[in-house]
Protein backbone atom coordinates (compact mmCIF):
# COMPACT_ATOMS: atom_id res chain seq x y z
CA UNK A 1 0.00 0.00 0.00
CA UNK A 2 2.85 2.36 0.80
CA UNK A 3 4.09 2.87 -2.72
CA UNK A 4 0.78 4.45 -3.74
CA UNK A 5 1.13 7.26 -1.25
CA UNK A 6 3.21 10.39 -1.72
CA UNK A 7 6.77 10.32 -0.40
CA UNK A 8 6.27 13.10 2.09
CA UNK A 9 4.02 10.88 4.21
CA UNK A 10 7.00 9.31 5.80
CA UNK A 11 9.27 11.07 8.16
CA UNK A 12 12.88 11.37 7.19
CA UNK A 13 15.08 11.39 10.21
CA UNK A 14 17.76 14.02 10.12
CA UNK A 15 15.87 16.29 7.83
CA UNK A 16 15.63 18.83 10.62
CA UNK A 17 19.33 18.91 11.24
CA UNK A 18 21.08 21.53 9.16
CA UNK A 19 23.99 20.00 7.29
CA UNK A 20 25.89 23.27 7.22
CA UNK A 21 25.98 25.47 10.35
CA UNK A 22 26.79 28.57 8.30
CA UNK A 23 23.63 28.18 6.25
CA UNK A 24 20.97 30.80 7.08
CA UNK A 25 18.02 29.39 9.03
CA UNK A 26 15.58 31.72 7.32
CA UNK A 27 16.27 33.31 3.97
CA UNK A 28 13.80 35.50 2.09
CA UNK A 29 14.61 36.92 -1.32
CA UNK A 30 12.39 39.65 -2.83
CA UNK A 31 9.30 38.05 -1.36
CA UNK A 32 5.88 39.48 -2.08
CA UNK A 33 2.81 37.85 -0.63
CA UNK A 34 -0.92 38.51 -0.65
CA UNK A 35 -3.46 37.69 2.01
CA UNK A 36 -7.12 37.58 0.96
CA UNK A 37 -6.31 39.44 -2.23
CA UNK A 38 -4.45 42.30 -0.53
CA UNK A 39 -0.69 42.72 -0.73
CA UNK A 40 0.44 41.95 2.80
CA UNK A 41 4.20 41.89 2.25
CA UNK A 42 6.22 43.57 -0.44
CA UNK A 43 9.71 42.83 -1.65
CA UNK A 44 11.07 41.43 1.61
CA UNK A 45 14.68 40.29 1.69
CA UNK A 46 16.57 39.19 4.78
CA UNK A 47 18.68 36.39 6.27
CA UNK A 48 18.60 35.01 9.78
CA UNK A 49 21.43 32.91 11.21
CA UNK A 50 20.88 29.64 13.05
CA UNK A 51 19.99 30.28 16.67
CA UNK A 52 18.85 33.86 16.12
CA UNK A 53 16.06 35.00 18.39
CA UNK A 54 14.14 37.77 16.72
CA UNK A 55 11.25 39.96 17.86
CA UNK A 56 9.03 40.81 14.91
CA UNK A 57 7.32 44.13 15.53
CA UNK A 58 5.06 46.39 13.54
CA UNK A 59 1.55 47.82 13.63
CA UNK A 60 -1.56 45.74 13.05
CA UNK A 61 -1.83 44.62 9.46
CA UNK A 62 1.94 44.99 9.03
CA UNK A 63 2.11 41.43 7.73
CA UNK A 64 3.55 39.69 10.79
CA UNK A 65 1.20 36.71 10.53
CA UNK A 66 1.66 36.56 6.77
CA UNK A 67 5.42 36.42 7.30
CA UNK A 68 4.92 33.49 9.69
CA UNK A 69 2.67 31.57 7.30
CA UNK A 70 5.28 32.04 4.55
CA UNK A 71 8.02 30.69 6.79
CA UNK A 72 5.83 27.80 7.95
CA UNK A 73 5.20 26.99 4.29
CA UNK A 74 1.41 27.08 4.58
CA UNK A 75 1.27 30.07 2.21
CA UNK A 76 3.25 30.36 -1.01
CA UNK A 77 4.68 33.76 -1.96
CA UNK A 78 3.40 35.49 -5.11
CA UNK A 79 6.98 36.42 -5.93
CA UNK A 80 10.40 35.63 -4.56
CA UNK A 81 11.75 32.65 -2.67
CA UNK A 82 11.63 31.47 0.94
CA UNK A 83 14.29 29.05 2.16
CA UNK A 84 14.36 27.39 5.56
CA UNK A 85 17.69 25.78 6.47
CA UNK A 86 18.47 25.59 2.79
CA UNK A 87 15.33 23.81 1.69
CA UNK A 88 12.18 25.41 0.28
CA UNK A 89 9.61 26.43 2.86
CA UNK A 90 7.38 23.52 1.88
CA UNK A 91 10.20 21.00 2.14
CA UNK A 92 10.97 21.69 5.75
CA UNK A 93 8.87 20.04 8.42
CA UNK A 94 10.53 21.22 11.61
CA UNK A 95 8.83 24.55 11.99
CA UNK A 96 7.11 24.67 15.36
CA UNK A 97 4.41 27.21 15.98
CA UNK A 98 1.95 28.18 18.65
CA UNK A 99 -1.52 28.73 17.19
CA UNK A 100 -3.58 31.81 17.94
CA UNK A 101 -5.94 31.20 20.83
CA UNK A 102 -9.13 31.62 18.83
CA UNK A 103 -8.06 28.95 16.34
CA UNK A 104 -8.31 26.20 18.93
CA UNK A 105 -11.49 24.52 20.17
CA UNK A 106 -10.76 24.38 23.90
CA UNK A 107 -13.64 21.97 24.52
CA UNK A 108 -11.91 19.42 22.27
CA UNK A 109 -11.54 16.09 24.10
CA UNK A 110 -7.75 15.90 24.21
CA UNK A 111 -5.40 15.93 27.16
CA UNK A 112 -2.20 17.93 27.51
CA UNK A 113 -0.15 14.84 26.65
CA UNK A 114 -2.32 14.16 23.57
CA UNK A 115 -1.66 17.66 22.23
CA UNK A 116 2.08 17.35 22.77
CA UNK A 117 2.07 13.93 21.09
CA UNK A 118 0.59 15.59 17.99
CA UNK A 119 3.99 17.18 17.47
CA UNK A 120 5.41 13.67 17.01
CA UNK A 121 2.88 12.57 14.38
CA UNK A 122 5.05 13.55 11.41
CA UNK A 123 8.02 11.60 12.77
CA UNK A 124 6.12 8.53 13.90
CA UNK A 125 4.99 8.11 10.31
CA UNK A 126 1.91 6.65 8.74
CA UNK A 127 0.39 3.37 9.96
CA UNK A 128 2.52 3.39 13.10
CA UNK A 129 1.67 4.03 16.72
CA UNK A 130 3.70 6.09 19.19
CA UNK A 131 6.61 4.12 20.61
CA UNK A 132 8.35 4.40 23.93
CA UNK A 133 10.80 7.01 22.64
CA UNK A 134 7.91 9.19 21.47
CA UNK A 135 6.27 9.02 24.89
CA UNK A 136 9.62 9.90 26.46
CA UNK A 137 9.98 12.91 24.16
CA UNK A 138 6.51 14.06 25.19
CA UNK A 139 7.32 13.68 28.89
CA UNK A 140 10.63 15.57 28.47
CA UNK A 141 8.98 18.36 26.52
CA UNK A 142 6.35 18.78 29.24
CA UNK A 143 9.03 18.85 31.89
CA UNK A 144 10.90 21.59 30.08
CA UNK A 145 7.86 23.86 30.29
CA UNK A 146 7.08 22.71 33.86
CA UNK A 147 3.80 21.11 32.87
CA UNK A 148 4.49 17.41 33.48
CA UNK A 149 2.17 17.18 36.50
CA UNK A 150 -0.75 18.40 34.38
CA UNK A 151 -0.22 15.91 31.53
CA UNK A 152 -3.58 14.20 32.04
CA UNK A 153 -5.66 17.37 32.18
CA UNK A 154 -8.03 18.24 29.39
CA UNK A 155 -6.67 21.32 27.60
CA UNK A 156 -9.74 23.43 28.38
CA UNK A 157 -9.09 23.08 32.10
CA UNK A 158 -5.82 25.04 31.99
CA UNK A 159 -5.05 28.72 32.39
CA UNK A 160 -4.07 30.75 29.33
CA UNK A 161 -0.40 30.62 30.25
CA UNK A 162 -0.47 26.88 30.79
CA UNK A 163 -2.20 26.40 27.42
CA UNK A 164 0.53 28.47 25.79
CA UNK A 165 3.17 26.25 27.43
CA UNK A 166 1.44 23.10 26.18
CA UNK A 167 1.80 24.30 22.60
CA UNK A 168 5.42 25.22 23.23
CA UNK A 169 5.96 21.68 24.52
CA UNK A 170 4.35 20.41 21.33
CA UNK A 171 6.90 22.35 19.28
CA UNK A 172 9.69 20.85 21.44
CA UNK A 173 8.33 17.33 20.93
CA UNK A 174 8.29 18.09 17.22
CA UNK A 175 12.05 18.74 17.55
CA UNK A 176 11.49 22.02 15.76
CA UNK A 177 14.61 23.96 14.91
CA UNK A 178 12.61 27.03 13.98
CA UNK A 179 9.93 28.33 16.29
CA UNK A 180 7.21 30.85 15.39
CA UNK A 181 5.45 32.43 18.37
CA UNK A 182 2.66 34.98 18.28
CA UNK A 183 2.49 37.19 21.39
CA UNK A 184 3.80 34.39 23.65
CA UNK A 185 3.99 36.54 26.79
CA UNK A 186 1.00 38.83 26.49
CA UNK A 187 -1.56 38.49 29.24
CA UNK A 188 0.12 35.53 30.92
CA UNK A 189 0.51 34.77 34.59
CA UNK A 190 3.99 35.29 36.01
CA UNK A 191 5.02 31.59 36.30
CA UNK A 192 4.12 31.07 32.66
CA UNK A 193 6.06 34.15 31.56
CA UNK A 194 9.08 32.95 33.50
CA UNK A 195 8.80 29.41 32.17
CA UNK A 196 8.64 30.70 28.60
CA UNK A 197 11.56 33.14 28.99
CA UNK A 198 13.56 30.38 30.64
CA UNK A 199 12.80 28.09 27.73
CA UNK A 200 13.81 30.75 25.20
CA UNK A 201 17.17 31.01 26.94
CA UNK A 202 17.64 27.22 26.71
CA UNK A 203 16.68 27.22 23.05
CA UNK A 204 19.22 29.95 22.34
CA UNK A 205 21.95 27.64 23.60
CA UNK A 206 20.66 24.79 21.47
CA UNK A 207 20.76 26.92 18.35
CA UNK A 208 17.01 26.88 17.74
CA UNK A 209 15.92 29.89 15.71
CA UNK A 210 12.97 31.72 17.27
CA UNK A 211 10.73 34.40 15.77
CA UNK A 212 8.34 36.14 18.12
CA UNK A 213 5.63 38.49 16.89
CA UNK A 214 4.82 41.06 19.53
CA UNK A 215 3.19 44.40 20.07
CA UNK A 216 5.25 45.03 23.13
CA UNK A 217 8.28 47.13 22.20
CA UNK A 218 9.70 46.95 25.73
CA UNK A 219 9.69 43.17 25.62
CA UNK A 220 11.23 43.21 22.18
CA UNK A 221 14.02 45.45 23.41
CA UNK A 222 14.71 43.63 26.67
CA UNK A 223 14.47 39.94 25.72
CA UNK A 224 15.65 39.74 22.12
CA UNK A 225 19.01 40.29 20.57
CA UNK A 226 17.47 41.15 17.21
CA UNK A 227 14.40 43.09 16.19
CA UNK A 228 12.70 42.92 12.81
CA UNK A 229 10.58 45.99 12.13
CA UNK A 230 7.87 45.45 9.58
CA UNK A 231 5.12 47.35 7.90
CA UNK A 232 4.36 45.61 4.61
CA UNK A 233 7.98 46.27 3.73
CA UNK A 234 11.02 45.45 5.83
CA UNK A 235 11.89 48.63 7.70
CA UNK A 236 14.72 47.44 9.88
CA UNK A 237 16.54 44.34 11.11
CA UNK A 238 19.25 44.49 13.72
CA UNK A 239 19.83 45.01 17.41
CA UNK A 240 17.09 46.84 19.37
CA UNK A 241 19.39 49.87 19.60
CA UNK A 242 19.78 49.96 15.83
CA UNK A 243 16.15 49.35 14.95
CA UNK A 244 13.99 50.88 17.64
CA UNK A 245 14.93 54.46 16.74
CA UNK A 246 12.48 57.34 16.37
CA UNK A 247 13.01 57.59 12.63
CA UNK A 248 12.56 53.88 11.86
CA UNK A 249 9.65 53.54 14.28
CA UNK A 250 7.83 56.47 12.75
CA UNK A 251 8.37 54.88 9.33
CA UNK A 252 6.75 51.71 10.60
CA UNK A 253 3.95 53.15 12.68
CA UNK A 254 3.31 56.40 10.79
CA UNK A 255 0.50 58.41 12.32
CA UNK A 256 0.05 55.86 15.08
CA UNK A 257 3.31 56.96 16.63
CA UNK A 258 3.68 60.03 18.76
CA UNK A 259 7.03 61.47 19.76
CA UNK A 260 7.00 63.68 22.80
CA UNK A 261 10.14 65.62 23.54
CA UNK A 262 10.79 66.33 27.18
CA UNK A 263 13.69 67.50 29.27
CA UNK A 264 14.46 63.91 30.27
CA UNK A 265 14.65 62.73 26.70
CA UNK A 266 12.30 61.70 23.94
CA UNK A 267 9.20 59.72 24.80
CA UNK A 268 7.82 57.52 22.06
CA UNK A 269 4.20 56.53 22.27
CA UNK A 270 3.36 53.84 19.78
CA UNK A 271 -0.32 53.06 19.64
CA UNK A 272 -0.19 49.48 18.56
CA UNK A 273 -3.46 48.11 19.68
CA UNK A 274 -6.43 46.60 18.08
CA UNK A 275 -8.16 49.06 15.78
CA UNK A 276 -7.76 52.57 14.55
CA UNK A 277 -11.33 53.62 15.18
CA UNK A 278 -10.45 55.63 18.25
CA UNK A 279 -7.96 57.79 16.40
CA UNK A 280 -10.53 59.97 14.59
CA UNK A 281 -12.54 60.00 17.81
CA UNK A 282 -9.70 61.91 19.39
CA UNK A 283 -9.55 64.38 16.55
CA UNK A 284 -13.27 65.09 16.37
CA UNK A 285 -14.05 65.29 20.05
CA UNK A 286 -11.07 66.39 22.07
CA UNK A 287 -11.55 65.14 25.60
CA UNK A 288 -10.96 67.52 28.48
CA UNK A 289 -8.14 65.39 29.84
CA UNK A 290 -6.23 63.61 27.07
CA UNK A 291 -6.23 59.97 28.05
CA UNK A 292 -3.53 57.70 26.73
CA UNK A 293 -4.75 55.31 24.06
CA UNK A 294 -5.08 51.67 25.19
CA UNK A 295 -2.11 49.37 25.01
CA UNK A 296 0.31 52.19 24.60
CA UNK A 297 3.97 51.28 24.70
CA UNK A 298 6.65 53.67 25.74
CA UNK A 299 10.36 53.77 25.25
CA UNK A 300 12.67 56.35 26.71
CA UNK A 301 15.56 57.24 24.54
Amino acid sequence: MKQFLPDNLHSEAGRCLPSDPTMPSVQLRQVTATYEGVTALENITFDLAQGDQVAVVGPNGAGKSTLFTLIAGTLAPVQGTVNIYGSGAQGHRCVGYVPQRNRIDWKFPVTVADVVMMGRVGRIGLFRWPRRQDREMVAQALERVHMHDLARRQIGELSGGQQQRVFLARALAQEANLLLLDEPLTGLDLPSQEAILDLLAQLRQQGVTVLVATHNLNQAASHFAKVLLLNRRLIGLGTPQEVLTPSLLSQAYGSQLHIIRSTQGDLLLADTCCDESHVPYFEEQPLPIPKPAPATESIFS
Partner: protein
Amino acid sequence: MSGLDWLLEPLHYGFMMRGLLASMMVGIICSTLGVYVILQGMAFFGDALAHAILPGIVLAYLLGWPLAVGALIFGILTSIGIGALSHKGEIREDTAIGIVFAGSFALGVAMLSTVGGYAVDLAHILFGDVLAVSVQDLWVMFGLSVCVLLIVLLFYKELLVLIFDPVLAKVLRLPTTFLRYLLLILIALTIVIALQTVGIALVLAMLVTPAATAQLLTRRIPSMMLVSAICGMAANVIGLYLSYYVNIASGPAMVLVATLFFMLAFLFAPERGLVIQKWKPRLQQG
Protein backbone atom coordinates in the same frame (compact mmCIF):
# COMPACT_ATOMS: atom_id res chain seq x y z
CA MET B 1 -43.39 -13.60 31.50
CA SER B 2 -39.90 -13.37 32.95
CA GLY B 3 -37.43 -10.67 31.90
CA LEU B 4 -35.38 -13.15 29.93
CA ASP B 5 -38.40 -14.35 27.99
CA TRP B 6 -39.28 -10.75 27.35
CA LEU B 7 -35.84 -10.27 25.79
CA LEU B 8 -35.69 -13.55 23.92
CA GLU B 9 -39.22 -13.83 22.58
CA PRO B 10 -38.82 -11.39 19.67
CA LEU B 11 -35.65 -13.15 18.57
CA HIS B 12 -37.61 -16.28 17.58
CA TYR B 13 -38.41 -14.34 14.44
CA GLY B 14 -35.60 -14.31 11.91
CA PHE B 15 -36.36 -10.74 10.88
CA MET B 16 -36.02 -9.55 14.48
CA MET B 17 -32.71 -11.35 14.89
CA ARG B 18 -31.39 -9.79 11.69
CA GLY B 19 -32.80 -6.44 12.76
CA LEU B 20 -31.04 -6.68 16.10
CA LEU B 21 -27.67 -7.46 14.52
CA ALA B 22 -28.10 -4.62 12.02
CA SER B 23 -29.08 -2.14 14.75
CA MET B 24 -26.09 -3.03 16.86
CA MET B 25 -23.67 -2.68 13.96
CA VAL B 26 -25.18 0.63 12.89
CA GLY B 27 -25.10 1.88 16.46
CA ILE B 28 -21.40 1.15 16.80
CA ILE B 29 -20.25 2.48 13.43
CA CYS B 30 -22.37 5.63 13.28
CA SER B 31 -21.56 6.64 16.81
CA THR B 32 -17.83 6.12 16.34
CA LEU B 33 -17.70 8.20 13.14
CA GLY B 34 -20.10 10.63 14.77
CA VAL B 35 -17.27 11.71 17.05
CA TYR B 36 -15.44 13.10 14.00
CA VAL B 37 -18.66 14.61 12.66
CA ILE B 38 -19.38 16.68 15.75
CA LEU B 39 -15.77 17.63 16.49
CA GLN B 40 -15.28 18.81 12.93
CA GLY B 41 -18.68 20.57 12.92
CA MET B 42 -19.96 18.52 10.00
CA ALA B 43 -23.55 17.86 11.12
CA PHE B 44 -25.01 19.72 8.17
CA PHE B 45 -22.67 17.91 5.80
CA GLY B 46 -23.78 14.56 7.20
CA ASP B 47 -27.46 15.38 6.80
CA ALA B 48 -26.88 16.66 3.28
CA LEU B 49 -24.88 13.62 2.30
CA ALA B 50 -27.64 11.31 3.52
CA HIS B 51 -30.15 13.08 1.29
CA ALA B 52 -27.83 13.47 -1.65
CA ILE B 53 -27.35 9.73 -2.14
CA LEU B 54 -31.01 9.21 -2.99
CA PRO B 55 -30.39 9.06 -6.77
CA GLY B 56 -27.87 6.29 -6.17
CA ILE B 57 -30.38 4.26 -4.22
CA VAL B 58 -33.09 4.72 -6.85
CA LEU B 59 -30.67 3.80 -9.62
CA ALA B 60 -29.56 0.66 -7.82
CA TYR B 61 -33.21 -0.21 -7.16
CA LEU B 62 -34.10 0.20 -10.83
CA LEU B 63 -31.08 -1.81 -12.01
CA GLY B 64 -31.58 -4.50 -9.39
CA TRP B 65 -28.18 -3.89 -7.70
CA PRO B 66 -27.71 -3.99 -3.93
CA LEU B 67 -28.91 -0.57 -2.70
CA ALA B 68 -25.69 -0.01 -0.81
CA VAL B 69 -23.64 -0.04 -4.03
CA GLY B 70 -25.65 2.77 -5.63
CA ALA B 71 -25.67 4.72 -2.39
CA LEU B 72 -21.92 4.36 -2.00
CA ILE B 73 -21.17 5.60 -5.52
CA PHE B 74 -23.35 8.68 -5.06
CA GLY B 75 -22.04 9.24 -1.54
CA ILE B 76 -18.48 9.40 -2.78
CA LEU B 77 -19.40 11.54 -5.80
CA THR B 78 -21.25 13.97 -3.55
CA SER B 79 -18.38 14.18 -1.05
CA ILE B 80 -15.91 14.91 -3.81
CA GLY B 81 -18.32 17.35 -5.47
CA ILE B 82 -18.82 19.36 -2.29
CA GLY B 83 -15.09 19.31 -1.57
CA ALA B 84 -14.24 20.48 -5.08
CA LEU B 85 -16.89 23.25 -5.13
CA SER B 86 -15.74 24.81 -1.87
CA HIS B 87 -12.02 24.02 -2.17
CA LYS B 88 -11.06 27.23 -3.97
CA GLY B 89 -12.90 29.33 -1.42
CA GLU B 90 -15.10 31.07 -4.02
CA ILE B 91 -18.19 29.37 -2.59
CA ARG B 92 -18.60 28.88 1.14
CA GLU B 93 -18.69 25.25 2.16
CA ASP B 94 -22.20 25.35 3.63
CA THR B 95 -23.47 26.96 0.43
CA ALA B 96 -21.82 24.26 -1.66
CA ILE B 97 -23.39 21.62 0.58
CA GLY B 98 -26.81 23.23 0.21
CA ILE B 99 -26.59 23.30 -3.58
CA VAL B 100 -25.43 19.71 -3.97
CA PHE B 101 -27.80 18.41 -1.27
CA ALA B 102 -30.98 19.94 -2.73
CA GLY B 103 -30.08 19.26 -6.35
CA SER B 104 -29.19 15.64 -5.80
CA PHE B 105 -32.19 14.93 -3.56
CA ALA B 106 -34.51 16.48 -6.16
CA LEU B 107 -32.95 14.26 -8.84
CA GLY B 108 -33.59 11.22 -6.67
CA VAL B 109 -37.22 12.10 -6.02
CA ALA B 110 -37.73 12.88 -9.72
CA MET B 111 -36.29 9.49 -10.70
CA LEU B 112 -38.40 7.73 -8.12
CA SER B 113 -41.56 9.47 -9.28
CA THR B 114 -41.23 7.79 -12.67
CA VAL B 115 -41.59 4.41 -10.97
CA GLY B 116 -44.91 2.95 -9.80
CA GLY B 117 -45.65 2.68 -6.05
CA TYR B 118 -43.65 5.87 -5.58
CA ALA B 119 -45.09 7.02 -2.23
CA VAL B 120 -44.48 3.66 -0.55
CA ASP B 121 -40.92 3.38 -1.83
CA LEU B 122 -40.08 6.93 -0.86
CA ALA B 123 -41.36 6.41 2.68
CA HIS B 124 -39.32 3.23 2.92
CA ILE B 125 -36.14 4.99 1.84
CA LEU B 126 -36.77 8.11 3.93
CA PHE B 127 -37.47 6.29 7.17
CA GLY B 128 -35.77 2.94 6.67
CA ASP B 129 -36.97 -0.47 7.82
CA VAL B 130 -34.57 -2.43 9.91
CA LEU B 131 -36.91 -5.44 9.89
CA ALA B 132 -36.55 -5.78 6.12
CA VAL B 133 -32.76 -6.33 6.32
CA SER B 134 -31.71 -9.51 4.47
CA VAL B 135 -28.81 -11.80 5.29
CA GLN B 136 -26.99 -10.46 2.26
CA ASP B 137 -27.52 -6.88 3.51
CA LEU B 138 -26.08 -7.90 6.85
CA TRP B 139 -22.90 -9.18 5.22
CA VAL B 140 -22.51 -5.98 3.17
CA MET B 141 -23.00 -3.90 6.32
CA PHE B 142 -20.50 -6.03 8.20
CA GLY B 143 -17.87 -5.74 5.46
CA LEU B 144 -18.27 -1.97 5.22
CA SER B 145 -18.18 -1.61 9.01
CA VAL B 146 -14.90 -3.49 9.25
CA CYS B 147 -13.44 -1.27 6.49
CA VAL B 148 -14.53 1.92 8.25
CA LEU B 149 -13.17 0.87 11.65
CA LEU B 150 -9.90 -0.27 10.10
CA ILE B 151 -9.41 3.04 8.29
CA VAL B 152 -10.19 4.98 11.48
CA LEU B 153 -7.60 2.91 13.31
CA LEU B 154 -4.94 3.27 10.60
CA PHE B 155 -5.30 7.05 10.24
CA TYR B 156 -6.27 7.79 13.83
CA LYS B 157 -3.43 10.12 14.73
CA GLU B 158 -3.39 11.94 11.39
CA LEU B 159 -7.16 12.54 11.47
CA LEU B 160 -6.85 13.77 15.05
CA VAL B 161 -4.24 16.37 14.05
CA LEU B 162 -6.28 17.42 11.01
CA ILE B 163 -9.44 17.99 13.06
CA PHE B 164 -7.81 19.56 16.09
CA ASP B 165 -5.31 21.84 14.35
CA PRO B 166 -5.35 21.81 10.54
CA VAL B 167 -2.43 24.26 10.42
CA LEU B 168 -0.23 21.79 12.30
CA ALA B 169 -1.29 19.11 9.82
CA LYS B 170 0.04 21.34 7.05
CA VAL B 171 3.21 22.26 8.93
CA LEU B 172 3.94 18.58 9.55
CA ARG B 173 3.36 18.08 5.81
CA LEU B 174 0.62 15.53 6.35
CA PRO B 175 -1.37 14.86 3.17
CA THR B 176 -4.20 17.15 4.27
CA THR B 177 -6.28 17.03 1.07
CA PHE B 178 -6.14 13.25 1.03
CA LEU B 179 -7.13 13.09 4.71
CA ARG B 180 -10.00 15.52 4.22
CA TYR B 181 -11.47 13.45 1.40
CA LEU B 182 -10.84 10.28 3.39
CA LEU B 183 -12.96 11.68 6.22
CA LEU B 184 -15.74 12.63 3.79
CA ILE B 185 -15.70 9.16 2.26
CA LEU B 186 -15.73 7.52 5.69
CA ILE B 187 -18.84 9.51 6.57
CA ALA B 188 -20.43 8.53 3.25
CA LEU B 189 -19.70 4.86 3.97
CA THR B 190 -21.19 5.17 7.44
CA ILE B 191 -24.38 6.71 6.10
CA VAL B 192 -24.72 3.88 3.60
CA ILE B 193 -24.35 1.37 6.44
CA ALA B 194 -27.03 3.14 8.49
CA LEU B 195 -29.45 3.77 5.70
CA GLN B 196 -31.58 0.67 5.96
CA THR B 197 -32.12 0.93 9.69
CA VAL B 198 -33.15 4.55 10.11
CA GLY B 199 -33.45 5.89 6.58
CA ILE B 200 -32.26 9.12 5.02
CA ALA B 201 -34.30 11.45 7.19
CA LEU B 202 -33.05 10.26 10.56
CA VAL B 203 -29.52 9.02 9.85
CA LEU B 204 -28.18 12.34 11.12
CA ALA B 205 -29.40 11.46 14.61
CA MET B 206 -27.27 8.31 14.58
CA LEU B 207 -24.20 10.36 13.67
CA VAL B 208 -24.68 13.27 16.00
CA THR B 209 -26.71 12.36 19.09
CA PRO B 210 -24.65 9.54 20.70
CA ALA B 211 -21.40 11.41 20.01
CA ALA B 212 -22.77 14.57 21.58
CA THR B 213 -23.87 12.51 24.59
CA ALA B 214 -20.38 11.04 24.86
CA GLN B 215 -18.69 14.43 24.69
CA LEU B 216 -20.52 15.45 27.85
CA LEU B 217 -19.21 12.39 29.66
CA THR B 218 -15.59 11.97 28.51
CA ARG B 219 -12.40 13.95 28.00
CA ARG B 220 -10.40 11.96 25.44
CA ILE B 221 -11.19 10.80 21.92
CA PRO B 222 -10.77 7.04 22.46
CA SER B 223 -13.09 7.05 25.48
CA MET B 224 -15.47 9.38 23.68
CA MET B 225 -15.65 6.92 20.78
CA LEU B 226 -16.23 4.01 23.15
CA VAL B 227 -18.96 5.74 25.15
CA SER B 228 -20.54 6.99 21.94
CA ALA B 229 -20.56 3.47 20.47
CA ILE B 230 -22.11 2.03 23.63
CA CYS B 231 -24.78 4.77 23.73
CA GLY B 232 -25.58 4.31 20.05
CA MET B 233 -25.77 0.55 20.32
CA ALA B 234 -27.90 0.63 23.46
CA ALA B 235 -30.26 3.21 21.98
CA ASN B 236 -30.75 1.11 18.86
CA VAL B 237 -31.36 -2.13 20.73
CA ILE B 238 -33.78 -0.53 23.20
CA GLY B 239 -35.49 1.24 20.30
CA LEU B 240 -35.91 -2.04 18.46
CA TYR B 241 -37.53 -3.73 21.47
CA LEU B 242 -39.77 -0.70 21.94
CA SER B 243 -40.88 -0.96 18.36
CA TYR B 244 -41.71 -4.64 18.89
CA TYR B 245 -43.68 -4.28 22.12
CA VAL B 246 -45.19 -0.80 21.76
CA ASN B 247 -45.68 -1.16 18.02
CA ILE B 248 -44.03 2.02 16.77
CA ALA B 249 -41.74 2.36 13.74
CA SER B 250 -38.25 1.10 14.61
CA GLY B 251 -36.13 3.97 13.18
CA PRO B 252 -37.92 6.75 15.08
CA ALA B 253 -37.96 4.62 18.24
CA MET B 254 -34.15 4.28 18.13
CA VAL B 255 -33.67 8.00 17.53
CA LEU B 256 -36.04 8.87 20.39
CA VAL B 257 -34.13 6.65 22.81
CA ALA B 258 -30.82 8.22 21.70
CA THR B 259 -32.34 11.67 22.22
CA LEU B 260 -33.47 10.67 25.70
CA PHE B 261 -29.92 9.52 26.51
CA PHE B 262 -28.62 12.88 25.37
CA MET B 263 -31.14 14.80 27.47
CA LEU B 264 -30.17 12.77 30.52
CA ALA B 265 -26.46 13.45 29.95
CA PHE B 266 -27.13 17.11 29.26
CA LEU B 267 -28.96 17.46 32.56
CA PHE B 268 -27.09 15.06 34.83
CA ALA B 269 -23.54 14.62 33.46
CA PRO B 270 -21.20 14.49 36.48
CA GLU B 271 -19.15 17.56 35.58
CA ARG B 272 -20.72 19.26 32.60
CA GLY B 273 -24.42 18.60 33.26
CA LEU B 274 -26.85 21.47 33.61
CA VAL B 275 -27.94 20.43 37.10
CA ILE B 276 -24.47 20.26 38.58
CA GLN B 277 -23.50 23.56 36.96
CA LYS B 278 -26.57 25.25 38.43
CA TRP B 279 -26.06 23.73 41.86
CA LYS B 280 -22.32 24.02 42.19
CA PRO B 281 -22.28 27.79 42.89
CA ARG B 282 -25.06 27.40 45.47
CA LEU B 283 -23.33 24.50 47.18
CA GLN B 284 -20.10 26.47 47.36
CA GLN B 285 -21.91 29.45 48.81
CA GLY B 286 -23.93 27.57 51.38
